[in-house]
């Protein structure tokens, strides 16, 4: 039919196809303020299209940021509870931050801009380094776009503020409006909030308020492993990864008009997230179907701190109670069949990061999953080379048998040292999974990615 080399024809056709694609110019995504924070917010909003309920500020002052009308408001961080019959908070570890949070909100984009977090700290006095807050000495530190200021309030309380993306002069002016009333940082003079300017080249990231909940049903089964509450748009939804592996399936659910992004991973983990008002919620759960996800979305409520404490009861863990809570949580770790757990050998992670109690057996399961994937890869290396991308069903079944056989040789020992599982358990689970789901339809394409992501040995 043709005398042209196939490569030349391919190049010609791709060029014609590419030339026929005329995407919308990027300018519609870029604000004229050249602010990356707004840019990414616009991208995020366009990608996921979450229609948030507008957060109504109270006692706010309208200011402008790069000519865009903004609202600056002191916002109490809501608490998240799951209000679902039969489900309770069996264990909770939560970061409690006694702070005042100043939030910038763009009415047009529904985007919360830079946040200033202000908290009281225990210390005697500030060693000033030349900057002042309303004439009082302050100390200023910068790190990766974050500006921290320590200063003494008019009432004599030492305060610390952390902000990202704001000009220092504006930040200091805002801080001058803050004092401590009844032990809590408070905006005492809203008129001084003034006009703010976002530093143009700083990476604007939102500070995150994290509430880690472990929620179980009445039978002790884990329903939700983690709820992550973040200020701002739905950034967590775009960073959903588990051990570097992408989701098996993503779907946008409609729950009573609320759009929920749901990712289902190969190992049964289900992540979903949605925006509610100014806040976004990201949830990690296990083995829940979409109907249950919908129930959970309906059940997740924002409450104030008082209601949260009432709901949590005596299970709330303050930072100074973390050691005792860890001991209790260790005692409550469920031990799946096939596991032997030497509790005396357990050394909890240092409390620098709030410990997620369910990283226990599930963490080991993660290692099993990793070993499983590596076993798949070992068993399929030769197959990929010889059979190409097309593998018939019989060969897949044969492969599954080979993988299960190889898994029986895998010794799985957790990095905790106190928890181990016979390899045969993992092999059995793999066999069950293969029987249930079959091998992923595109697994040959996945091999090299998985090999690297799972740190499997090279062929």
């Amino acid at each position: 039919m043709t005398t042209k080399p196939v490569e030349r024809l391919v190049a010609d056709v791709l060029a014609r196809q590419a030339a026929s694609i005329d995407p919308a110019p990027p300018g519609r995504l870029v604000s004229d303020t050249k602010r990356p924070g707004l840019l990414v917010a616009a991208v995020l909003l366009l990608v996921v299209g979450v229609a948030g309920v507008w957060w109504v500020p109270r006692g706010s002052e309208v200011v402008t940021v790069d000519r865009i009308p903004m609202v600056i408001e002191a916002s109490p961080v809501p608490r998240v509870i799951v209000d679902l019959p039969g489900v309770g908070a069996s264990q909770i570890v939560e970061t409690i931050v006694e702070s005042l949070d100043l939030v910038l909100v763009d009415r047009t984009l529904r985007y919360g801009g830079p946040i200033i977090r202000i908290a009281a700290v225990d210390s005697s006095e500030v060693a000033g380094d030349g900057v002042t807050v309303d004439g009082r000495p302050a100390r200023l530190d910068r790190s990766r776009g974050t500006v921290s200021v320590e200063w003494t309030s008019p009432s004599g309380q030492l305060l610390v503020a952390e902000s990202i993306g704001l000009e220092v002069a504006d930040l200091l002016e805002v801080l001058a409006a803050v004092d401590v009333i009844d032990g809590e940082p408070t905006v005492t003079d809203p008129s001084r909030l003034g006009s703010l300017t976002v530093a143009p080249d700083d990476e604007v990231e939102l500070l995150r308020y994290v509430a880690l909940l472990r929620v179980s049903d009445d039978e002790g089964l884990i329903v939700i492993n983690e709820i992550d509450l973040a200020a701002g748009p739905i950034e967590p939804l775009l960073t959903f990864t588990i051990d570097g592996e992408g989701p098996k399936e993503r779907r946008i659910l409609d729950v009573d008009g609320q759009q929920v992004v749901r990712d289902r991973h190969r190992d049964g983990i289900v992540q979903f997230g949605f925006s509610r008002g100014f806040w976004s919620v990201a949830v990690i759960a296990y083995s829940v179907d979409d109907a249950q996800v919908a129930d959970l979305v309906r059940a997740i409520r924002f409450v104030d701190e008082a209601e949260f404490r009432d709901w949590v009861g005596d299970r709330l863990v303050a930072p100074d109670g973390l050691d005792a809570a860890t001991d209790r949580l260790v005692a409550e770790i469920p031990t799946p069949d096939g596991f032997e757990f030497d509790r005396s050998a357990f050394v909890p992670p240092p409390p620098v990061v709030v410990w997620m109690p369910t990283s226990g057996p599930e963490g080991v399961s993660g290692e099993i999953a990793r070993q499983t994937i590596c076993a798949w890869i070992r068993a399929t290396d030769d197959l990929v080379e010889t059979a190409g991308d097309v593998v018939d069903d019989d060969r897949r079944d044969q492969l599954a048998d080979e993988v299960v056989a190889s898994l029986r040789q895998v010794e799985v020992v957790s990095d905790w040292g106190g928890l181990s599982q016979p390899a045969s358990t993992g092999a059995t689970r793999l066999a069950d999974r293969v029987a249930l789901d079959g091998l992923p339809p595109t697994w040959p394409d996945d091999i090299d990615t998985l090999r690297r992501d799972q740190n499997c040995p090279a062929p």
Partner: protein
Amino acid sequence: MADLREHDRVTAADTFEEFFEREWVAAVRTAALLTQDRSVAEEIAQEAFARVFQRWDRIDRPGAYLQRCVTNGARGYHRHRSVVRDKLPLLLSADDPPESAFVADALAALPFRQRAVLVLRYWNGLSERQIADALACRPGTVKSAHARAIATIGEALR
């Protein structure tokens, strides 16, 4: 041909906005060619740029990273799609060579990795090693996928 191939063009003086404006069209076109579906190309490109933005201060070669993100996004779309592959609804005018239709059909029917190798090689102008990096596979895999893809298309033209 496509800006994305020049991974080292981004200098320290570039801002994300400049990078975004310069690479946007190429990223969308690459996503469209990889997925053979223009309707999702912008979405994949947007998500890719969002990922680049999140790591803007920490990545040395944003062009290469964007390439990886676009490819991964297209790969994810490909996984979710049904078996039916529609030819990219574009192009062929009466003036186009007749064999173009056969090539386009064959391209659309290729497995994702094979099609990706051809797109990245002949439209983005990447080297074998750069393609391997974008697809997270070995150069040898790129070579074999390329050979199979060309053979398949050649067969379609006979």
